[in-house]
């Protein structure tokens, strides 16, 4: 049986599953029509369990922000300045070729001061004064870990569940399972941000928001960060909405006939994407026109907010998308790969994201949306306590470190004002409550009403899941 026919049969089966079982994820469509309250009242269990979050915003810090200088204070390290990292601590951790050739691994304590903040007393670096002001809203996980030591495998791993590319991204899984609450905007939108650190940044690839083996309509739609957010959004002169509609109606009919002959799901993707483009012609100008935002709201996000393409602007846009029912928006901010000149570059990076991230949390809370919007902040791995390159009292570099890093979550059924997990004195090994990136993804799915173990698609002989084949656990301690 050829694969196209097999796919068509599984699509038909899926359609039956959606249509007939209220216990299936088809309830998501029902929820879209009726609204969550009506869904609950109707007794239909549209999700695998009741969701806490209706939508999520992922602030992805590409390049690996240094946890030692931002979130994981190690004051004892001041006594270890320029002393070698003990073998007992390193314990055979493989190193990247960027430092494996070093003869010494001298400890570089953070030059930044950490203070306790909020009612929770969570310690935050002086580089993040605005985030320090919202610690009572966030759950800070200091015990994240991964196996990957290089960027592309690591970011592919955290986005898709495997270091080898080809699988659907988190956003695509959410689009596939939950759909969009707004038929005029994609379920999954990606925003790429400019960054301030003075070095080249790790590249990002469209496959990081790709749909893998899921129908390609679930891929992330990346808005452009310069110029028009969507190219060729406006119709040419002489084509008005009704002419465009006439053209699309005929096109859809012919494409639909083509689908019926070939049963190729990509034809359906094309039909739905053209329809989405038509709707985005109306919805995107409204989304990106921030002239209706009051001054006090814009001021919260900081001075960059009026400049399209900045992280601040993108945070504002993601709040607007949250209001408009976009299921998952993901903002990428690059430039965190401080192998050298950390004290020169990291403050610039922190300044890019500190105020807008805090503003986003506050803004959602002000609008009563924080309870059902999950916000996630983090990168793909951590950084080493030992110095890469030249160590001085005022500057140092850090190499990649997979064994521990820090991520925070807010809203969407996650506790505020808590920390989870601990690392040793060197911020090298986890001493308490390790959270693998699989566990983070399981938790994100859980808050949105999805059981990561049951949410799967049969492909290449496996029940493929975002969390893969190895064990993954929802981090229950930080859930509301």
């Amino acid at each position, binding site marked *: 049986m050829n694969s196209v026919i097999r796919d068509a049969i599984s699509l038909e089966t899926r359609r039956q599953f959606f249509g007939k079982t209220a216990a299936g994820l088809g309830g998501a469509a029902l929820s879209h029509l009726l609204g969550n309250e009506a869904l609950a009242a109707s007794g239909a269990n549209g999700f695998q369990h009741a969701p806490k979050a209706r939508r999520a915003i992922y602030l992805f810090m590409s390049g690996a922000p240094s946890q030692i200088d931002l979130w994981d204070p190690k004051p004892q390290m001041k006594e270890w300045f320029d002393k070698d990292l003990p073998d007992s601590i390193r314990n055979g951790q493989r190193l990247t070729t960027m430092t494996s050739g070093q003869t010494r691994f001298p400890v570089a304590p953070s030059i930044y001061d950490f203070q306790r903040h909020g009612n929770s007393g969570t310690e935050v670096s002086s580089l993040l004064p605005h985030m320090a002001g919202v610690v009572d809203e966030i759950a800070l996980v200091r015990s994240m870990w991964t196996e990957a030591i290089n960027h592309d495998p690591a970011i592919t791993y955290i986005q898709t569940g495997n270091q080898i590319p080809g699988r659907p991204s988190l956003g695509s899984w959410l689009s596939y399972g939950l759909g969009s609450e707004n038929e005029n905007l994609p379920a999954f939108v990606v925003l790429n941000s400019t960054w301030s650190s003075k070095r080249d940044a790790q590249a990002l690839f469209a496959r990081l928001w790709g749909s893998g083996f899921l129908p390609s309509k679930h891929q992330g739609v990346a808005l452009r960060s310069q110029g028009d957010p969507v190219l060729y959004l406006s119709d040419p*002169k*002489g*084509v008005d909405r009704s*002419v465009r509609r006439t*053209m699309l109606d*005929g*096109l859809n009919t012919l*494409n639909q006939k083509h689908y019926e002959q070939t049963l190729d799901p990509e034809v359906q993707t094309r039909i739905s994407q*053209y329809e989405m483009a038509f709707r985005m012609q109306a919805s995107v100008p409204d989304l990106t026109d921030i002239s209706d935002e009051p001054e006090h709201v814009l001021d919260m996000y900081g001075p960059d907010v009026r400049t399209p393409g900045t992280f601040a602007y993108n945070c504002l846009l993601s709040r607007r998308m949250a209001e408009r029912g976009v299921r998952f928006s993901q903002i990428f901010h690059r430039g965190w790969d401080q192998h050298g000149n950390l004290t020169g570059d990291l403050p610039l990076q922190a300044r890019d994201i500190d105020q807008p991230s805090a503003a986003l949390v506050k803004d959602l809370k002000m609008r009563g949306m924080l309870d059902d919007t999950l916000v996630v902040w983090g990168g793909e791995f951590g950084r080493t306590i030992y110095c890469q390159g030249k160590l001085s009292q005022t500057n140092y570099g850090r190499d990649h470190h997979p064994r521990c890093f820090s991520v925070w979550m807010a809203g969407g059924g996650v506790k505020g004002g808590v920390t989870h997990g601990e690392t040793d004195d060197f911020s090298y090994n986890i001493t308490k409550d390790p959270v693998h990136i699989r566990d983070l993804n399981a938790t994100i799915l859980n808050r949105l009403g999805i059981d990561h173990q049951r949410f799967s698609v049969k492909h290449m002989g496996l029940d493929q899941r975002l969390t893969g084949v190895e064990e993954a656990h929802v981090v229950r301690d930080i859930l509301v």
Partner: protein
Amino acid sequence: HPGDTDSRTDYLSLALLGRELADDERVVVNNAIAQFHNTYTSHSSDAEALLVDDVNPTYTIHPTEKHDAAELATWTMITSQLMNLDESLTKN
């Protein structure tokens, strides 16, 4: 000119798809032709605007006695429609 319509449609489908349209497909295209022609006959300034090439003015299409703006605009849209078919865009 019904004769012209069929031969033009055949030209497009042979060039884009390597085949002639089936009868039910022809109906869809003919409907679109009629709708576009109606619209552009009653909105002649739109028709003319569509024929202008802002980027390269030498490519602007000028109506003639034989082919007025409405006809040219109509076939511009029909060509665009058929070029956007999944079958045109996806060559396996």
